[in-house]
């Protein structure tokens, strides 16, 4: 008790002592209350999915659901080849712990794990309660990765391929355009910039049918390139890179020209490395968008072999019935790479959004 009291006092002191040493008032309590409620609402559903993904199929079917993944506790008993599940058994007024050998109708044959030589005991099943323990089961993941002819692996491969290739092309292509628009003065540069930015007004949802036609004409339906090409020029990316390159001093370029560097060399060896911070932001947003893309792949990719992870996940419940365990494992796997990236790059991402308003 005194320990709990000290901890509570410590927590209170931690919260109440504001930066600058001013005491907390009621508005601080409201603030913390709101934020903590927010933590529950934002985090709990996702943590719940992750926890559930480690449950066995039987554990998943229970209602009310158990908070932690649980499995039957088992014990090795002399004379029996497999570990046996343990039950807490009511016998008269006392309760004992027995291991179940087999079940016959409403009765179970049990054995005392400490004295197996005493023989089988017959117990009515309503008197036996299974004993369970915390158990992180990986069978959902193992079954998922092994199942269905390995289509999950092709989905992973397709998603990674699209994300990596589209991001690399986006970075090179957009920085080339940004270089032209920031480091050359030429007639039409303003118009070119406007043309690029104007594409912001044409979201994919509005030109779905024509994009499908064009991708068909290019013979790229059911081909990963069909979802890469339409999205690799990102107007916000060009804009961000251009603004950044404007801050790179022109003298550097002039010096390079004195040394007879080609324009491409100046771009590739001089400007691109200097624009790394802006490239990082553009790369993060590109990876995020490509990994999570849904509508365009949904229209362009119609065969399971070319599915991305998002399509495989969305279409999963349609086939083989719903196997919740594998579905949950797949949801977790699909979210994992970006979630991990976010933990390390939070600052980049949030400042990137705050300064550009893009995603």
């Amino acid at each position: 008790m005194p320990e709990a009291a000290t901890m509570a006092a410590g927590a209170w002191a931690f919260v109440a002592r504001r930066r600058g040493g001013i005491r907390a008032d009621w508005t601080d309590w409201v603030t913390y209350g709101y934020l903590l409620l927010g933590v529950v609402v934002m985090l709990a559903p996702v943590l719940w999915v992750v926890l559930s993904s480690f449950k066995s199929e039987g554990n998943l079917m229970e209602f009310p659901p158990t908070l932690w993944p649980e499995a039957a506790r088992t014990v090795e008993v002399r004379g029996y080849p497999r570990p046996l599940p343990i039950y807490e058994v009511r016998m008269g007024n006392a309760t004992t712990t027995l291991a179940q050998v087999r079940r016959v109708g409403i009765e179970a044959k049990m054995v005392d794990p400490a004295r197996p030589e005493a023989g089988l005991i017959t117990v009515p099943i309503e008197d036996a309660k299974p004993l369970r323990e915390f158990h992180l089961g990986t069978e959902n993941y193992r079954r998922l990765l092994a199942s269905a002819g390995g289509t999950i692996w092709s989905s992973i491969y397709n998603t990674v391929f699209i994300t990596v290739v589209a991001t690399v092309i986006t970075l090179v292509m957009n920085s080339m355009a940004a270089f032209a628009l920031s480091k050359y003065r030429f007639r039409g540069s303003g118009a070119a910039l406007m043309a690029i930015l104007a594409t912001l007004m044409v979201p994919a949802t509005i030109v779905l049918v024509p994009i499908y036609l064009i991708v068909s004409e290019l013979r790229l339906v059911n081909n990963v390139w069909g979802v890469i090409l339409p999205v690799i020029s990102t107007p916000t990316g060009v804009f961000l890179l251009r603004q950044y390159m404007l801050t790179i001093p022109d003298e550097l370029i002039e010096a390079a020209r004195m040394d007879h560097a080609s324009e491409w060399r100046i771009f590739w060896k001089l400007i691109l490395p200097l624009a790394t911070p802006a490239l990082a932001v553009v790369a993060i947003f590109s990876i995020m968008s490509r990994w999570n893309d849904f509508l365009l792949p949904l229209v362009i990719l119609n065969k399971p072999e070319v599915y991305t992870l998002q399509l495989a996940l969305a279409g999963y419940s349609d086939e083989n019935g719903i196997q919740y365990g594998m579905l949950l494992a797949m949801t977790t796997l699909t979210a994992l790479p970006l979630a991990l990236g976010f933990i390390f790059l939070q600052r980049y991402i949030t400042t990137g959004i705050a300064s550009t308003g893009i995603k």
Partner: protein
Amino acid sequence: MGSGDRGVRRWVPWLFLAPNLAIIAVFSLLPVLVNVMYSVTGSDNLWPSERPFVGFENFSTLLECGNYFDPATCSRDLFWRAVGNAIVFVPTQVAVMIGFALVTAIALNRNIRARGFFRGVFFFPVMLSPVVVAMTWLWVLQRDGALNGVLGALGFEQVTWLTDPSRAFRWSVFVTVWAHMGFYTIILLAGLQSIPADIYEAAKMDRASPWRVFTRITLPMLKPVLLVVFILAVIRSVQTFDEIYVLTGGGPGTATKMIVHYIFDTGFAVMPRNYGLAAAASLILGAALFVFTALQMRLSRGGGNA
């Protein structure tokens, strides 16, 4: 930049621009024109040369209605149900989302501990894909799910959250707010942080109440950022598709069917594919978004001068 590029040939910058402009021409500019072409031609044939010209027939089919307040009287009742849903969904979702984003941004802007942690918690659903978001909430909301488990422990009965039209609609609003509010929170937080601290100091000297500080200082100073957030939120809200498509499939019935869902169904999911109608609906949607944005910009500029 001036003298340095004097020796450079005039076409060099265009060479650097070429890949980008080519992609834009093929995948942004051309589609707008092709969309117009589709919207005035008929049949389920994808190839433009084999589509007969039908004039404004697609538009009139789409817009024809006996009574605009009753979608059942329209020749394309699903389109009007989607429009009707959007008319309720967009204002509700945008208001709830910006409301929560603003409250959260204000809370995060206070002198609090563990700000980075709290900001990360509110933001991280933005990183999740729409499919993951929908799957997560499907799992929480299913009949034997966590929400019913918690409610059951409190003595309530199990509820099927997504099979009742109005409940499914409200959950669609909630889930899309949950998924996207972090994005707007970050922008609003940046806006709040750019308000100079000495204005607040001065208000404190004058013993202004917190409410007065909020309405007289915070809101007016935040107005430009709020406007941007509002426009972005409306544009995206009108185009809502992914999360709801996976969460409810537009149902039960048509209770949560959105306009983009109608376009997707008409053009791709329902046979025979009606590209003309889908393109016409896209154009109407695009035009509505354009008019909205232009109007907002003009109104806000007018307000700024007054």
